[in-house]
């Protein structure tokens, strides 16, 4: 009996965590922050100097803002929207795994053909993978919401 109540408590806690959403206005904040950070990253190429550290920080900031867009509640967060969220998450996960597995091979093949001296298996950075997963999620979610 005690074991059952502990399991129930854990299940409820996990559900609460999974269902957690930021207020709707965070979506606007997230988009604005992500766009501004992207503009800042691109604008560094117009100035002389070493901006690598700043770029690294801004990349993390872009990811954080996109994540807040994903976590923000829709105006009416009903079961259909939750269904779309689940579908978009699974597509993003699949895209992330496939990209991580196939992109180094594709790179190696392309470099082997055109620049053999640079052909090597290189792992992808965390930014590339997370950027892809977040954008795939957002694209699928908005397509589903618009067409569904």
């Amino acid at each position: 009996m005690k074991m059952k109540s502990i399991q129930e408590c854990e299940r409820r806690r996990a559900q609460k965590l999974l269902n957690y959403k930021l207020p709707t206005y965070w979506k606007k904040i997230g988009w604005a922050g992500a766009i501004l950070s992207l503009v800042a990253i691109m604008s560094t190429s117009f100035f002389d100097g070493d901006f690598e550290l700043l770029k690294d920080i801004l990349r993390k900031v872009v990811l954080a803002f996109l994540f807040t867009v994903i976590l923000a509640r829709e105006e009416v967060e009903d079961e259909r929207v939750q269904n779309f969220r689940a579908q978009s998450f699974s597509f993003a996960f699949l895209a992330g795994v496939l990209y991580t597995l196939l992109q180094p091979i594709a790179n190696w093949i392309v470099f082997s053909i055109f620049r053999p001296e640079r052909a090597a298996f290189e792992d992808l950075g965390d930014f590339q993978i997370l950027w892809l997963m977040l954008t795939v999620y957002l694209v699928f979610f908005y397509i589903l919401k618009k067409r569904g």
Partner: protein
Amino acid sequence: MAHVNCISRVLLYSKKARIMKNTLKVERAILNLTQGDLANRIGVSRQTINSIESNRYVPSTVLSLKLSEVFGKPVNDFFTLGEDD
């Protein structure tokens, strides 16, 4: 735009969505309710009602029971399985 159409068609028009039929529109008309009114009553968006009516979305048991409460009829009266099943 064609690829977007294609993706959404693959995602939305699953077999599950096609085999369910419903008479939600008729039931709504009997009670003289708009999609928005019905949506407000059961706590979903208007788009959700629209998707259910056009067989693009199959609602959960909870939502079906809420609809049944609004229409005052059993779920079987307005949701039926299609011939494919």
